[in-house]
C-alpha cells in the first residue's frame, strides 16, 4: 500500500516535472515513452495478471489509431469524442473476440492473437473506408507547436494514470482476484464459481480499451498513419519486452520497463548509427536469461541480490 502510493506520487511528480524543464523533442520522446508505458501496462492486464500471453495486442493499437483517423477526418468528430469512441471500439473488439479465442491455451492463444492482428491489418489494407494501404491523414491540431506537444503529452499521461488507478482498484476487487485465480489455476477458479469466460473477456477488453486510446493519441500526434506501422508485430513484442523487463504482474513494472527500454534504445541509436540494433538484441537475450522476473523483482528482492540471484534463474529453468 505504502509502496503503491509512493509509486503514484513518483509518476505524477516526474510526469508533471518533465515537460516544464525540457525542449519539445524531450517532450515528444516522453510522450512516446508514456504511450509505450500504456501499451505495456495494458498487456500486463491480460498477459501478466490473467496469464494469457497475447501476441497480438498491437491489433487494439491499430484499431484505435484507425478509428480515430476515420472518426476525425471522415465523420468530422473532435479529438476527445474520437478518443473515447476509439477506446470503446477497441474494447468491444477485444471483448467480442475474446469469447472464441480465449478458449485456447498457451501457444495456441499466442498464435491466435498474432493471426488476428495480421488478419485485421490485411483487412484494413483492403478497405475503402481506411483508404487501403495508402495511409490516412488526420486533421492538424489547431494550436501552437509548444501547446500541441504539451497537449499530446498530458493526454497520454492522463490515460496512463487512469489506467493505473483503475487497475489498482480492480486488483483489490473480486474482478482482480478472479484474474489472478485464472492465471494460477483456471479449472480451480472455475470450480470456485468464477465465470472464467466472462472474466477473461473483460480482461482482454480492458487491455483493448487502453491500448486503443493510446493508438488514438498516437495517430493524432503523428498526423498521418499507415497500416504497417500501427499493426506491426515488433511493437507487440516490444510491449512484452517492456513488461517482462520491468516485471510482469506488478502494477508499476511495465511502466519501469517502458521507461528504461525506451531510454536505452534511444541512447543506443543516438550513439551507434547502425549497430544499435545488435546491442538491443543482445540486451533482450541477456535480460531474459539472467533476470526473467524483471526490475521490480530486483528492487523488492534487493536484500538477497548478488551473483547468486542472477544464476538462480538459470539453475531453475535449464534442463
Amino acid at each position, binding site marked *: 500500500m505504502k509502496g503503491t502510493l509512493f509509486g503514484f506520487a513518483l509518476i505524477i511528480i516526474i510526469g508533471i516535472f518533465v515537460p516544464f524543464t525540457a525542449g519539445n523533442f524531450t517532450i515528444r520522446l516522453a510522450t512516446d515513452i508514456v504511450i509505450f508505458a500504456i501499451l505495456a501496462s495494458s498487456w500486463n492486464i491480460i498477459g501478466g495478471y490473467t496469464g494469457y500471453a497475447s501476441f497480438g495486442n498491437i491489433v487494439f493499437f491499430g484499431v484505435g489509431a484507425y478509428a480515430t483517423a476515420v472518426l476525425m477526418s471522415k465523420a468530422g468528430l473532435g479529438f476527445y469524442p474520437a478518443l473515447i469512441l476509439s477506446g470503446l471500439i477497441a474494447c468491444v473488439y477485444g471483448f467480442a473476440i475474446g469469447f472464441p479465442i480465449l*478458449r485456447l491455451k498457451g501457444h495456441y492463444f499466442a498464435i491466435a492473437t498474432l*493471426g488476428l492482428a495480421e488478419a485485421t491489418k490485411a483487412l484494413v489494407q483492403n478497405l475503402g473506408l481506411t483508404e487501403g494501404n495508402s495511409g490516412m491523414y488526420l486533421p492538424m491540431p489547431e494550436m501552437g507547436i509548444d501547446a500541441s506537444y504539451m497537449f499530446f503529452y498530458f493526454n497520454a499521461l492522463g490515460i496512463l494514470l487512469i489506467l493505473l488507478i483503475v487497475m489498482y482498484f480492480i486488483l483489490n476487487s473480486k474482478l482482480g482476484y478472479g484474474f489472478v485465480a485464472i492465471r494460477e489455476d483456471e479449472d480451480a477458479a472455475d470450480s470456485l464459481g468464477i465465470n472464467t469466460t466472462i472474466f477473461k473477456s473483460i480482461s482482454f477488453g480492458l487491455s483493448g480499451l487502453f491500448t486503443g486510446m493510446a493508438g488514438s493519441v498516437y495517430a493524432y500526434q503523428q498526423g498521418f498513419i499507415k497500416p504497417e506501422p500501427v499493426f506491426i*508485430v515488433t511493437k507487440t513484442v516490444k510491449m512484452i519486452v517492456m513488461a517482462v523487463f520491468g516485471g510482469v504482474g506488478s502494477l508499476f513494472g511495465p511502466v519501469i520497463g517502458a521507461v528504461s527500454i525506451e531510454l536505452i534504445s534511444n541512447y543506443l541509436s543516438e550513439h551507434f548509427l547502425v549497430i544499435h540494433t545488435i546491442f*538491443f*538484441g543482445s540486451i533482450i*537475450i541477456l535480460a531474459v536469461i539472467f533476470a*526473467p522476473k524483471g526490475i521490480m523483482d530486483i528492487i523488492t528482492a534487493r536484500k538477497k541480490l548478488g551473483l547468486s540471484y542472477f544464476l538462480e*534463474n538459470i539453475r531453475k529453468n535449464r*534442463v
Partner: protein
Amino acid sequence: MLTQILINGILKGGLYALMAMGMSLIWGVMNIINIAHGSFIMLGAYTTYWFFTLYGMDPFVSILLSMVLIFFLGFFIQKYIINFVIGASLFITLLLAFGIEILINNLALLFWTADVKSVQVTYGGANTEILGAVIPTVRLLAFLLAIAVSVILFIIMNKTWLGRAIRSTAQDLEAARLNGVNVGNIYSITFGIGTAVAAAAGTLWAVIFPISPTMGGHLTLKSFVVTIIGGLGTMMGPLVGGLSLGIVESLGTNWFGSTFENLISFTILVLVLIFKPNGILGKKE
C-alpha cells in the same frame, strides 16, 4: 487456366511445407515457438548464395553443406542460450527467440548489407508444358526436394533410435530421462535438425526468389499458419498444411486479387484455431 493456378499453388505449397517442418518439430518436441525461424531460413539462403557465388556450387549440391552448417549453429544456440530458459514461462522463451532474431537479422544486415541478392542458376527459367499448363523446372525440383526431406525426416523420427528418443522426450521428459536419454542433448539435436530443415527451405527459396537479410519475418508468419493448419505432433502435418495453404492462396488471389493473400491466410489461421485447434491432422486432446 485453373490447372495452371492449381499447379502454381501446389508447387508453392511444397516450399511452405518444408519451411514449416522445422518449426513444427521444435514446437512439438520442446514446446518452444521459434520466432527466429525465418532468420534461419534467411541464413540457409545466404549460405547457398555464398557457396554459389564464391565457389560456383550448384544449390542442389550445396544444400547439404548449408544444412550441416546451420545444424551446428542451431545446436549451439540451443545448448548455450535457449537451454537456460527452457523451463521458464512461454513468453520468456518467445522473447528470447525474438532477441535472437533481432541479433541474427542485424548481423546479416551489417555484414551482407541490405542489397537484394539472387542465385542465378543456368536452368533458372526452364520449364515444361503439360496439358497447356507451364511447370517451372526449378519449382518442380524444389517441390520434389521438399517432399524428399519430409520423407527422410519421417524415417528418422519413426525408424531410428534418435527419433524414438526425440519422441519420448517430447511425450514425457522425466520418463525419457529415467530411460537413460540425455535430454539436454536431445533438445540441442532437435533444435539443430529444426534449423537445418529451415536452412534447406532457405536454399530452395534462394533458387526461386531474390533474398535479403530482412526476408525472414514474413516467412516466420507463413510457417506459423502452415504449422497450425497441419497440426502439431505428426510429420505429415506440415505437408498437409503447406499444400492446403498453397492451393487456397493461389485460388484466393486469383478470385479476389493479389492484395488478399495475407487476409486469406491469416483468416484461415484464426478459423482453424477456433474450430479445429489441433489442425487438420491433429489428434483429439
